[in-house]
């Protein structure tokens, strides 16, 4: 079992401070790296070089950009709904921090270990929609409003296959993890605990091998949940200028940007936990494997983004309701059935 910070420090205040500080550091560095990586991946795919000027192969380009954004004027448009407009970036960003703190990075390291971690992750994921809609509604801009409306419809729809596919994994965990020896004692694994999900895979096998359909559905839904291409219609540049964050500038815009990349990061991390065995791997230590798998998934997400055109809004919804949801329900039923048959 991973030791949590509270167990380590004893004092909750210190634990929370360390946890939040650690998560913020990881998220900031990660976002800086991911933005650089996104530029590089797009450049490689498009046979360009990408950023090359600031630092070795432009590694400090994002830092330079962030400094630029810090120095920019925060333009506040006329006629906005002030509380909503100002709160939106925070509401979008805060759940990201909370969600990251739930993930087990290795066998021994986790910020917190909660028995309903998986549920909480989806709850925090759902929070982002509220923030996005606040931004769209508060901006007094039709493009922003259109983007926000699309975003709400899309995120709520895609949460269903997302959770259904994760549910298949939860079933698997409870089925295979009835009696798992951990640290010398036999434990029954809890399917909603992220660390337990990983341990079920360590004990048995990676769930991507037994649940490929769920993995695919989960991956597609994560793309949609994080507004990544080809599902980036809430901020479709060629249609809605910048979608819900059209009216945001400077660091407010940077927060949205950070949140987007961090959401992607969380989506990939959860996928790693659910399907790719989390920290499991030979030779290298647990966290290294964990992040290797996460970044491999992120690379695929970027690769997908730089390959496809964007779906239309109604097609996006059709794809979700007519293909993904029936498929994930079917997958869940088949999983349950197989488990039942094997167990009895």
């Amino acid at each position, binding site marked *: 079992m991973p030791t949590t910070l509270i167990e380590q420090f004893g004092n909750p205040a210190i634990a929370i401070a360390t946890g939040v500080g650690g998560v913020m550091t990881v998220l900031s560095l990660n976002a800086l790296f991911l933005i650089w990586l996104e530029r590089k991946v797009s*450049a*490689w*795919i*498009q*046979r*360009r*070089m990408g950023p*090359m000027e600031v630092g070795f192969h432009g590694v400090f380009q994002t830092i330079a950009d962030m400094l630029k954004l810090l120095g920019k004027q925060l333009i506040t448009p006329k006629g906005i709904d002030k509380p909503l407009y100002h709160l939106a970036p925070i509401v979008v960003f805060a759940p990201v921090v909370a969600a990251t703190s739930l993930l087990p990075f290795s066998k021994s390291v986790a910020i917190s270990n909660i028995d309903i971690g998986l549920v909480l992750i989806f709850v925090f994921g759902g929070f982002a929609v509220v923030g996005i809609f606040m931004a769209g509604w508060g901006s007094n801009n039709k493009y922003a409003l259109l983007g926000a409306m699309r975003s709400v419809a899309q995120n709520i729809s895609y949460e269903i296959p997302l959770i259904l596919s994760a549910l298949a994994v939860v079933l698997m965990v409870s089925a295979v993890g009835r009696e798992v020896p951990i640290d010398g004692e036999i434990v029954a694994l809890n399917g909603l605990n992220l660390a337990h999900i990983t341990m079920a895979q360590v004990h048995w096998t990676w769930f991507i091998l037994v649940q490929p359909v769920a993995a695919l559905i989960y991956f597609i839904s994560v793309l949609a949940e994080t507004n990544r291409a080809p599902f980036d219609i809430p901020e479709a540049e060629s249609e809605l200028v910048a979608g819900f964050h059209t009216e945001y500038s400077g660091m407010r815009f940077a927060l949205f940007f950070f949140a987007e990349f961090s959401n992607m990061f969380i989506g990939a991390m959860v996928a790693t936990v659910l399907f790719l065995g989390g920290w499991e791997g030979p030779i290298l230590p647990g966290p290294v494997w964990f992040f290797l798998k996460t970044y491999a998934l992120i690379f695929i997400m970027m*690769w*997908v983004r*730089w*390959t*496809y055109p964007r779906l239309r809004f109604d097609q996006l919804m059709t794809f979700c309701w*007519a*293909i993904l949801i029936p498929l994930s329900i079917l997958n869940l039923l088949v999983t349950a059935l197989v488990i039942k048959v094997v167990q009895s």
Partner: protein
Amino acid sequence: MTLAARTVHGFHTLLTGLGVTFKQIFKRNVTLQYPHEKPELSKAYRSLIKLKRFDELDSHDCVACMQCVKICPSACITIEGGKVDGIKRKRATLFEVDFALCSVCGLCIDVCPTDTLEYSRLYDEAGYERAWTYDLLAEFREEEPAFRERQRVQEEQEAAEKEAKRLAAEQAKAAKEAQASKPPDAPEGTT
């Protein structure tokens, strides 16, 4: 096609697309790192015009005929000049081009009767001010007196030669006429 078949086919095309882009990752990139590397200019490269230096003159040959000024659609050429003291050849005393107006259409080059205009290799002319007026005579200005002196001497020589030729021709003509007017049977050397 049923929905299932269409979905499977759709996923297949999506994977094909991913394959196409993945292959490109390993290909040589095509970027030219611009301020560090510069492109090779084509031989027909069009830019600001300049005055050609002719070997036999060791100077330009703009005779300020104003053809280019008249044909220029952007009216960006200013020329002064014409007859100058001491020499017969006409010379431009001012040749300015406002490159900010120029559309590099090349009509001035095509119309020039002495072919003294050509494109320069001027490149990378971004600047912070709007003034892009170039004085095309700048490189010739210092040597202009020397050129005129050379030209004057040459013209004098030419004139002298011409005069000598004319005299010689006149003499020959006179001699011929005299010969013609003389009776054919007259003895030699009587004139």
